């Protein structure tokens, strides 16, 4: 643990407050908002998800707005049982199908079962797998075992990209988040991601815990040359928040991370606020509230 170094809570929270005080105006705002759209992993992870809802979500992902200049999102993120429907809807598009796996969200199953689920998802057509780390093992101090499990999942992914969810709220300290980031990155491939949260427990992505992770990504990159991606997820609901996250990327990781092969937002309602703000920025006025809903799959 110690080899990854400590993080000072007060210091990191002051640092991210500076990102949030950046003033992004006019064309730079529009660029940020549009880029954020391309980084969205449009997500539905509910027990009541149906093929119908996923189909609607996929159509929204392909064409987020009736304004054709708005680009498609990066991916849709769903449960394994719905991969086939998503695959069907997203055939011949660049949009990725991402599936959670490994007994999401708790991860509390045997490794064998979790790896089976990963293989099932990959075989069903998932381009990307969102796994959860074993927080129980981590908090018990079994760091090597945590890393071995992640390595096993990497193996099971084959050609699919992997996103490793640390579930930062359950790791609790910034020191733990930094250490877990390194444990994961040491067995990942370039183009894989580390991700903050499942969105299923209280306390999801914040600017501060995301900053701890992108600083770990930066340090790992400078040390090894391997570029790992970042996906904050959960709790990012407004366009303004998304811009703050992107400012942090710009000023910590640099331009090479300002694209959806290295940065994603795991979100559902964020997309509609991005669309709302893009419209406002272009027209100078807000539309009526009923033009954009809060639901991920509708407008």
């Amino acid at each position, binding site marked *: 643990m110690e080899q990854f170094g400590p993080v000072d809570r007060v210091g990191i929270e002051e640092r991210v407050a500076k990102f949030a005080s950046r003033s992004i105006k006019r064309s730079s705002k529009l660029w940020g908002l549009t880029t954020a759209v391309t980084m969205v992993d449009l997500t539905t992870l509910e027990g009541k998800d149906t093929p119908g809802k996923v189909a609607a979500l996929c159509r929204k992902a392909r064409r987020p707005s009736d304004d054709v200049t708005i680009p498609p999102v990066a991916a849709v993120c769903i449960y394994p049982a719905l991969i086939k429907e998503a695959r069907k809807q997203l055939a011949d598009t660049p949009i990725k199908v991402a599936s959670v796996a490994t007994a999401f969200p708790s991860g509390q199953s045997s490794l064998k079962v979790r790896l089976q689920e990963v293989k099932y998802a990959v075989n069903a057509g998932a381009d990307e797998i969102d796994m959860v780390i074993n927080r129980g093992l981590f908090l018990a101090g079994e760091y090597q075992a945590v890393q071995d499990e992640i390595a096993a999942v990497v193996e099971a992914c084959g050609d699919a990209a992997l996103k490793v969810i640390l579930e930062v709220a359950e790791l609790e300290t910034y020191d733990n988040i930094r250490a877990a980031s390194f444990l994961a990155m040491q067995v990942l491939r370039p183009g894989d991601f580390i991700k903050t949260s499942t969105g299923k427990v209280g306390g999801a992505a914040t600017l501060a815990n995301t900053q701890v992770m992108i600083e770990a990504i930066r340090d790992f990159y*400078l040390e090894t*040359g391997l570029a790992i991606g970042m996906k904050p997820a959960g709790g990012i609901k407004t366009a303004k928040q998304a811009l703050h996250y992107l400012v942090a990327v*710009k000023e910590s990781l*640099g331009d090479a991370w300002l694209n959806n092969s290295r940065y994603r937002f795991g979100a559902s309602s964020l997309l509609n606020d991005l669309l709302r703000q893009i419209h406002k920025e272009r027209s100078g006025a807000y539309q009526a509230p009923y033009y954009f809903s809060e639901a991920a799959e509708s407008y």
Partner: protein
Amino acid sequence: MATTIDPSTHVGDGNGKQDGKHDDDTKKKSSRKHAVPELLFGDLWEFDPAPETASPNIKPRYDLFIGGQFVAPQSGQYFDSINPATEEVVSQIALASPGDVDAAYYAAQMAYETVWRDMPGRERGKYVYRIARLLQDRAREFAVAETIDGGKPIKESRDFDVPMAAAHFFYHAGWADKLAYIAPGRRVEPIGVVGQVIPWNFPLLMLAWKIAPAIAAGNCVVLKPAETTSVTAMKFAELLQDAGLPDGVVNIVTGAGETGAAVVNHPAAKKIAFTGSTEVGKIIMRSLAERGTRMTMELGGKAANVVFEDAPIDQAVEGVINGIFFNQGHVCCAGSRLLVQESIADMFVRKLRQRMAVLRVGDPLDKNTDVGAINSREQLDRICDLVESGISEGAEMFQPSCALPPRGYFYRPTIFTGVTQSHRIAREEIFGPVLSILTFRTMDEAVERANNTMYGLSAGVWTDKGSRILRMATDLKAGVVWANTFNKFDPTSPFGGYKESGFGREGGRQGLLDYVELA
């Protein structure tokens, strides 16, 4: 700047794994052979200008504030106050002669004897509270004026200078009716008329540090702001009129060194409070020694930021950056010497350079500006001279490649490596955005180097180990030692120096004691 996304940059580019090429990547990883990886801080996402647009309400000309009125200087002379970011004239400031200073002291003495000394503390407190609230109400206006007149970034005047100035008035207002409690068993009385001379680096905040405790304790004031930054002091005088502060309790006389000398040497001054350079401080001390006038001195500094190998590195980098580039380094407690443990020195310097690559230098009124303009041509020349000495004495300089505005007094954030104790840049206060980096091997060596200076205003310690913090705080001879942070201020916390950084404290109970007589 593109406002739409090129579809060719969609998922899959940049790493190629999703295109089935990830074998290459795995090979790459196993061999671990790469060109040295660099971060790219380019122009992919440039920020549009975001200027603060609130009106500063600056008058084209300011008279002296004496006896509650604005009065023309006896000499009839005015001098220009320059916006250091544009080199344009902001306003014309009255030049006070010794006769004007005499009038100011007379007004202060009258106010002291007839109104302020005998006013019950709870009544005095009401005025001080009113000043604090008015300052808060007009915070944006004062912030913009401060930035235009002095060159500091608007985000600092907005988020630090003005709120902190108001906080000092609030804090001391609370003391006005509780003075009996700062020294139990003693009778607490005001001193009388106090002469105060303040610097140009935090014009409004230094004014607040001086005036708030003085008037809360029942003293009256003659204050001289710095020559280059008088505007917010004169706006503050207008605010005092709005607050209905009795005439003469606070008098503000503007001018340069001669005016300052008249303020300091006036026989009616019962105490002199000075913040500025050690050089001028010593001149004042010599002249006051003859008369036995009480004094407090807050002078220069050459603070060491000591970073141990177990420190939270990124936060230490941030603290060092903040410590030296905050307010363009025009900070007496700036962390202008970095002492970094040899085992992490290379890595730490690399991180400092990366962090400097994203510092935004430019228009101080832009809300995204991190480093603004150097306060004056004179100060810019001094910085250039000291940087020249660093180069000629053999230290290695690094500056980021950021563009500077075509006009105005700007200087790139600068760090020097390979600095030794004998370099001028390690000994003299530069008062600019220039950091000297030295290394150490052991804690004893760090303490020895940190203390090897005539100054002793502040210091910083960065380590994850609590016991080391406690020992360093004891061993470092500095008035303030920050641990795992830097440049933290609070009205409740006393601030002041050891050694030739001065004596007396400002803020807290200790600061107030410097404005009272204990009978």
